């Protein structure tokens, strides 16, 4: 085990896969010479050379289209979209082309590619650089969707994403890049589609993703301490495939389901999971399903405003305290 930051784990994961498989290539804006604007890809150019690690123009449609063309002809591209908000400028490539190519061609094409992107709030970047848009990807059939909460998962899930034969949208949380954690030494490959139960409790089940995971854990500790409420906390890690087995099993155990979501309220992953639970384990529920989300507003920029908009530990504790009774 070694301690790495979340951003170092990104570079480590890419390096591990580029080392192993020469078909893996990497492109994006400022990712090569500069090592990425979040410094998450430092050293890759030096190590793998300009043929495999390339800076691009500001042309997101070209970046993603090029990844698609490369993937269908035998390579395994990783493309970076600097901020997940910019997926909107190449959304056609992602949602209409990449997601559908295999299906439309009746399996003639596979697209083993990864789109890495910095998601989420916390840096006071304002409404166009802070969104959590994993639900955009989740809503489109044909895309796998991953969002790790810690360095070990970053490396392991990124490796799994690169090895996966299907397109994976890999949401890194920009608020977590500086966070540290133990990462297994040597080759580390995780499994897509597996949630992790981080804490077992008896009263409520709390689902969280990415930067909401540490907040949910801290809220669980406080709920235990201050209210005697015992919470299970599940880190979803992957939205597609979705580990409904774990999710439903953990929900049934406590009978009370909560989601903690950074995305704006409407049609988030929490809505999807809440409605799966309301259909599939309705009779095991002991009370309302409660989603704790960012309100349905664009994100404000000022620190005081941003902090008050995204679900905080305080808000999680307060909501569960109020409703879990």
């Amino acid at each position, binding site marked *: 085990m070694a301690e790495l930051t979340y951003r170092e784990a990104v570079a480590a994961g890419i390096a591990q896969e580029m080392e192993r498989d020469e078909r893996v*290539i990497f492109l994006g804006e400022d990712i090569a010479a500069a090592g990425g604007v979040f410094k998450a890809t430092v050293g890759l150019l030096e190590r793998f050379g300009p*043929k*495999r690690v*390339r800076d*691009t*123009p500001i*042309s*997101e*449609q*070209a*970046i*993603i*289209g*090029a*990844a*698609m*063309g*490369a*993937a*269908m*002809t*035998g*390579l395994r*591209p990783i493309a970076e979209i600097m901020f997940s908000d910019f997926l909107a400028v190449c959304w*056609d*490539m992602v949602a*209409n*082309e990449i997601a559908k*190519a*295999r*299906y*439309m*061609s*009746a*399996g*003639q*094409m*596979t697209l*083993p590619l990864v789109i890495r992107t910095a998601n989420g709030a916390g840096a006071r970047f304002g409404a166009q650089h802070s969104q959590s848009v994993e639900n955009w990807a989740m809503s489109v*059939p*044909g895309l796998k969707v991953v969002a790790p909460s810690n360095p070990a998962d970053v490396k392991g899930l990124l490796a799994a994403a690169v090895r996966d*034969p*299907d397109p994976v949208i890999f949401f890194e949380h920009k608020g977590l890049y500086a966070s540290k954690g133990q990462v297994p030494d040597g080759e580390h490959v995780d499994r897509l*589609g597996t949630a992790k139960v981080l804490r077992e409790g008896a009263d409520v089940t709390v689902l969280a993703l990415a930067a909401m995971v540490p907040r949910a854990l801290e809220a669980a500790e406080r709920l235990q301490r201050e209210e005697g409420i015992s919470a299970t906390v599940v880190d979803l890690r992957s939205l*597609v*495939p*979705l*580990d*409904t*087995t774990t999710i439903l099993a953990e929900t049934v155990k406590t009978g009370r389901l909560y989601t903690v979501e950074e995305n704006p309220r409407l049609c988030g992953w929490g809505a999807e999971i809440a409605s799966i639970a309301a259909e599939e384990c309705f009779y095991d529920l002991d009370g309302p399903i409660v989603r704790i989300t960012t309100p349905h507003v664009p994100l404000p920029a000022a620190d005081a405003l941003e902090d008050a908009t995204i679900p905080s530990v305080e808000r999680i504790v307060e909501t569960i305290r109020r409703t879990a009774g």
Partner: protein
Amino acid sequence: MSNSPRTAPAGASSGPRVDQATRLALFRSQLEIRLLEKRAYDLFLQNLIKGTSHLSLGQEAVAAGFAVAMRGDDYTFCTYRGHAHTLARGAPMAGVLGELMGRKCGLMGGKGGSMHLTSVRHGAMGSYAIVGAHLPVAAGAAWSAQVRGTDQVAVCFFGDGATNIGAFHEALNFAAVWKLPVIFVCENNQYMEYTPIRSVTAVEHPAADRASAYGLERQIVDGNDADAVYAAAAAAIGRARGGEGPSLIEAMTYRYSGHSRADPAKYRPAGELEEWMKRDPIALYRARLIELGVPESALRDMEGAVQRAVDEATETAKASAPSSVDVIDRDVWADGGSSWRN
């Protein structure tokens, strides 16, 4: 904009001499497209083809000229108007008609439909129905060839209307900067759906007049002359294979039918279609072959053979069962399934 191309085919004189076998291949390819698409048209009228469909009648020389100049392992990317390009790369006629008819024998078993013809084993890497989207994808395939160190090239066909969309610009610059072996071919048939391209474009030649914006040569070719197309194609492909980077070629042509099945094409000025039909690519080419000494009987034999092939393909497609509903939840993922949960 006048009806006849104003510019001499680029590279026509300097291009490779076209030999007899190549000429016959060019003729045959055009014929196959023409006769198959006419059949497709009949099948609409019989309501055996549902949904939409976009014919290339009148534009056959572009598809043929390029396909004949390409190598088996090169890549073709085309639009919803892609029957011609898919056929020209060698995809089976029954597979094309079957797809249009929603039959099991269709190239994609009916899942893709007329606008998405794909035959990867023939290098036909998909037909794309969102205008402009496939230009970056073609650049990516070319990049892949460059990285893998093969000398494959990618050829990407699109309409005049596609030149005004963002993806065109991004792909052209990207390909030029990375010197990718990709040839962008604008089939300028003068119209988008119903709107003349000249009414919405700042330059007269929507592709060629923009080549310099990407450091590329201005190239216009007579898209109704298969030899001219072939010559331009061969030259551009040669440059791409030789590591000299991309080309942008504007082929001037005309579509005889409406934009799609739904369109009676009433927006065309009287006489315009007739003017273009005088320069029908297949009639012109047939006359040229005869002039060059090919016996008419040989051409008639070929015409007969192609017609029989179309007839047979039609029967095969008609005899094929409708697409089977159990493919609906197949092939979202590489494991063959569609499951998004465990």
